[in-house]
C-alpha cells in the first residue's frame, strides 16, 4: 500500500504567535511538525506495517519546512517531497491544495492520501477536501478509527452526534482526528537513518503549474486578537441549579 501523508511545518504552538503584515510570523520562529499531522504519519506507518508499501511525506513551505519532513522520516516514513517557492509565500488553501495535488501526482501512484483534519496554525480545514477533489478520489474526513483490507478502507467517521461507519474504495483521501492513535516517538535510530532517506525538492516550475494557478484567490480582510477569555459563570443553586447546568451543557452541545 503506497501512502502519502501531507505534513505541515508550523510555528511551535506552545510559543505565543506573533503577527507580521496580517499574517502569522513564520521566519525566525521555532517551527515544528504540526502536532495534528503526527496522527497522520502514525496512521500511515501502521498501514505500511500491516500491508507493506511505502510512506511518502509531502509538504509545501519554505526550505525550513524540511524540519517537519525530517521528523516524519525519523518516525519511520520512507521518503519526502518538499515544494518550496518564493511565489508560494502566503498561499491560500486552494493554491496549497493545487500544489500538493501536483506534487502527489508527480510522486507516483498512490493508494491513500492522509491529512490532519486542519492545520494547527491556519485552521481553515478546507485544504484536504479540495485536495481530494483535485486528485479525483473519494474523501473520508474526521476518521477516528480505521480498518483497511484489500483495495478498501472502513472508517469510523466522527460527527457532532456520534460516528458513521464509512467504506471507501482505494485510492482515497482521509483526514484523521487527534486520538485516532498514539503517535510514536522518533527513535534515535530513526533520527540517525532519516538523514539518509531521499527527499525531493521541487519548485512550482517542476510541477508545471502556471502563475495563475498559484495566485491566491483569498484575501485577508483584517486580523484581530481573539477575545480574552472571560471568567466562568457561577451558578448559585436556588433549586434550579441542576436545570441551569443542563441548559448550559445543551447550549455547548455537550449533551
Amino acid at each position, binding site marked *: 500500500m503506497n501512502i502519502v501523508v501531507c505534513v505541515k511545518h508550523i510555528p511551535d504552538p506552545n510559543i505565543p504567535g506573533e503577527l507580521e503584515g496580517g499574517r502569522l510570523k513564520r521566519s525566525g520562529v521555532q517551527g515544528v511538525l504540526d502536532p495534528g499531522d503526527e496522527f497522520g504519519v502514525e496512521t500511515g506507518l501502521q498501514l505500511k506495517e500491516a500491508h507493506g508499501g511505502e510512506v511518502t511525506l509531502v509538504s509545501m513551505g519554505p526550505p525550513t519546512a524540511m*524540519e517537519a519532513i*525530517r*521528523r516524519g522520516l*525519523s518516525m519511520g516514513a520512507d521518503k519526502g517531497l518538499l515544494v518550496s517557492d518564493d511565489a508560494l509565500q502566503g498561499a491560500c488553501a486552494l493554491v496549497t491544495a493545487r500544489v500538493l495535488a501536483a506534487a502527489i501526482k508527480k510522486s507516483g501512484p498512490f493508494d491513500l492520501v492522509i491529512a490532519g483534519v486542519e492545520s494547527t496554525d491556519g485552521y481553515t480545514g478546507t485544504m484536504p477536501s479540495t485536495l481530494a477533489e483535485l486528485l479525483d478520489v473519494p474523501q473520508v474526513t474526521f476518521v477516528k478509527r480505521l480498518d483497511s483490507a484489500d483495495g478498501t478502507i472502513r472508517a469510523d467517521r466522527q460527527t457532532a452526534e456520534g460516528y458513521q461507519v464509512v467504506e471507501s474504495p482505494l485510492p482515497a483521501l482521509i483526514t484523521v482526528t487527534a486520538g485516532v492513535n498514539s503517535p510514536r*516517538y*522518533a*527513535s*534515535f*535510530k*530513526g*533520527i*540517525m537513518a532519516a*538523514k539518509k532517506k531521499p527527499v525531493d525538492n521541487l519548485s512550482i516550475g517542476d510541477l508545471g503549474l502556471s502563475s495563475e494557478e498559484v495566485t491566491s484567490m483569498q484575501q485577508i480582510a483584517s486580523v484581530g486578537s481573539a477575545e480574552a477569555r472571560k471568567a466562568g459563570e457561577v451558578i448559585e443553586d436556588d433549586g434550579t441549579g441542576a436545570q441551569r447546568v443542563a441548559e448550559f451543557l445543551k447550549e455547548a452541545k455537550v449533551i
Partner: protein
Amino acid sequence: MDAVDFLDLEPLLTEEEKMIRDTCRRFVGDRVMPGIEKWFEAAEFPVEVATELGSLGLLGMHLSGYGCAGTNAVSYGLACLELEAGDAGFRSFVSVQGSLAMWPIWKYGSEEQKQEWLPRMAAGEAIGCFGLTEPDFGSDPAGMRTSAKKNGSDWVLNGNKLWITNGGIADVAIVWARTDEGVRGFLVPRNTKGFTTRDIHRKLSLRASVTSELILDNCRLPADAVLPGVTGMKGPLSCLSEARFGIVWGVMGSARACYECALEYSKTRIAFDKPIGSFQLTQEKLVNMMLEINKGLLLALHLGRKKDDGNLAPQQVSFGKLNNVREALAIAREARTILGANGVTLEYPVIRHANNLESVLTYEGTSEIHTLILGQAITGLNAFA
C-alpha cells in the same frame, strides 16, 4: 533574551542533535515527570520503563552496531541532560546500562559476548550493572579484594561489591576482579550459582534508582565469561571515563530544572507586596545560576566535540565532572533558598535534585579525587600514590 539559553548555544547543535534532545525531552515530560514524585518517595525505579528507553534508542545510544543507535557523543550528552532534568535516577540507569555495562562488552568483549548481550541490552530487555566499588575500596579500587581464580578451565569468583546501581535488577553484572594476571572483567549472569544481590534501602538520595550489593560466594563461571580485550585497571577506569562524560551533561539538567523552578517561583511569590524576583538578593542568585548553567553547557559541549574528534583526555573529563557537579549542587541549594519552605517539599523538584546531586558528587570519582587528578595533571606530582 532567553532566560535559559542566554548565550544562544542552540545554533551550535546540529539538526540531528536537536531532534534527539527534543525527543528525549518529550519522553521525559510524558513518562518521567508524571511519576517521578511518587517513585522518589516510594524509593522505586519503574523497571518497566527500561524497554521504553530501549525502543527510544537511549540505551547504548553512542555505540555502533548490535541494535545500538550509533549517535555521536554530543547527542548522548544532550540525552543525559534531558533525562536528568527529569531525575538523576533515570540518567543513572541509562549511564550504567550504556556506558558502564554495554560499553565494556562493546569495547572489550568477544564477538559471542557482544551478540549475546548487546542487542537485548540496547532494547532494554536485559539490564546490566557494573561491579567495581567494594565496601572497603571506593576511591582506591585497585586495592579490591574480589578475586577470580582459575579452576580447571573455569573461573571461581569471591568477594563483595557495594553501591552498585541497577545491581538488584540486573540480568548481567560486569564484575571486576583480581586475577594472577591483573584485574579482569567478568560477565556474571543473574542466575549464576554463588551470585546474589541485596538492595540498599534507606537512601535519601537517588531514591528512584536501585542501588545494591553484589555478593560472589564461590561463584563459578566458564572460561568464556571473561572479557578478553583488557587486563588491568585500565579496563574499569576507561568505562568510568565514558560514564563521567554523561554526568558532565546530566548535572546541567538537574541545575536547569532547579533554576527554571526558582525563576518561575520568584516571579509569582509575593513578599513585602512585590514578587521576590524583584529583590536584588534574589536576582543575584538567579543570575549566578544562569551564568553557571550557560558556562557548564559550553564546557560540556566543548568536551563533547573533543570526544567526537577523538582527542578528549580523561583529565579533561575530570575537569568537566568536578566543575559541573559542584556548580549544579550549588545551584540546587541556592534554588532551594528562593523557594523558602516550599523548597523542602516534594511538591517542587528542587530538594529532589539537590539530594540526588549529593550522590552524583561522590559516584564515578569523588570531587576530591577529580581535584587530585587535575592537581597531578598541572604539577606532575601524584597526591594519592
